[in-house]
């Protein structure tokens, strides 16, 4: 790789530096300087692109949609790929069906909860269940871009303070009606799932085990973070890395 090629490629995605580029950067002082400047410029560009969003926009959207309950049918013709809401009778049948499913799930949950001894165990089970629900995230190998991680964190009001290494999965999920950032960090001993929940404070910090997993709950400035990994794994380094790398913005 030569300098020209290096600069062509980094201009396409400065957030990521593939191994070949990284190798060239270490050998070439000019490209090192170029890359540092480009990173600074990129940070400035990201800041410039983040124009202020009207504070009441989310509320306006929710209000507008609450007024629109009866205007569902119009969409189908104009929006062929999008299926409109079902008719009222079908919605009612769906509701009854959904109610039956919900009722059976609720019975299962009640039965399951009767066997749990403490709130911490319940939370542990919930986090493990959530992780297993998105089990595909545990087998990913390739680190994702810093931009993707930043986007996921930003969606829940978390600012990345430093690069989180070896993140192979980042998505926004809902836990107990609150949006969370769901990351998976690859380690030598296995994947660690990190659920950053700035909108949810679960009380005291704890460490529990469930099945083959261990769960550690840590409190942030606002909200909590759950770390879920194999029992054999030492969660502490990842906990430290994550806690030093993120900051909760005002929520």
């Amino acid at each position: 790789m030569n300098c020209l090629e290096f600069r062509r490629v980094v201009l396409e995605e400065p957030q990521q530096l593939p191994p070949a580029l990284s190798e060239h950067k270490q050998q070439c002082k000019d490209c090192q300087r170029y890359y540092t400047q480009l990173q600074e410029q990129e940070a400035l560009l990201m800041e410039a692109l983040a124009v202020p969003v009207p504070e009441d926009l989310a509320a306006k959207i929710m209000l507008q949609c609450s007024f629109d309950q009866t205007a569902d049918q119009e969409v189908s013709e104009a929006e062929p790929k999008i299926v409109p809401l079902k008719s009222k009778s079908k919605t009612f049948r769906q509701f009854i069906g959904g109610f039956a499913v919900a009722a059976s799930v609720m019975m299962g949950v009640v039965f399951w909860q009767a066997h749990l001894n403490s709130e911490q165990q319940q939370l542990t089970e919930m986090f493990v269940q959530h992780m297993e629900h998105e089990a595909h995230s545990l087998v990913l190998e390739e680190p994702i871009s810093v931009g993707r991680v930043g986007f996921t964190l930003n969606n829940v009001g978390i600012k990345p303070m430093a690069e989180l290494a070896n993140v192979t999965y980042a998505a926004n999920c809902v836990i107990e009606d609150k949006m969370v950032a769901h990351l998976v960090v690859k380690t030598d001993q296995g994947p660690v799932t990190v659920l950053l929940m700035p909108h949810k404070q679960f009380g005291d910090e704890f460490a529990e085990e469930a099945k083959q997993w261990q769960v550690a709950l840590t409190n942030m400035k606002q909200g909590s973070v759950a770390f879920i990994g194999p029992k054999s794994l030492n969660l502490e380094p990842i906990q430290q890395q994550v806690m030093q790398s993120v900051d909760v913005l005002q929520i």
Partner: protein
Amino acid sequence: MYMKNKDQQFQALVEAYHKPLYRYAYWLTSDESVAEDLVQETFMRAWRALDSLQNVEAAKSWLITILRRENARRFQRKSLEYTDIEADELPDNSGHYAFSTNLEALRNCMGRLSEKYREPIVMQLVLGYSQDEIAQALDIPANTVATRLRRARQQLQAMLGGNDEQGYSRGVGV
């Protein structure tokens, strides 16, 4: 992802995506009120069609698709009212935001980039899209996306060139 009902699912989508969608719409239209209207219309359509969203993981690209389609419709509806205006003649709204000089300069330059260069870079930096995802959303080859991203940054560097204190002016020509 655990969802209790349609309202909660929708609210979660709004919470997660209204900000990046607004910023994307803003850079697509260069107009705050049009961007706001576009985002509201996008979510309105999403609300009406929420039952068709089978895979929550695909929600973001689904919303982007709706927004882009809405934006295209806007142009179809008003195509006769539009005339070509040089970028230099466009009103400078930058003073509206309390940005520093560097940010203002960059924002002005972003507004002067042609849409084919501006949209991929906004998708990459505002929406967190990979080059493949941009290619899929814009329906263009991945290597075209790479070229446009590179040229967008080169053009920004060139526009801000001549003042070494400015962020994008120090790049070496590639």
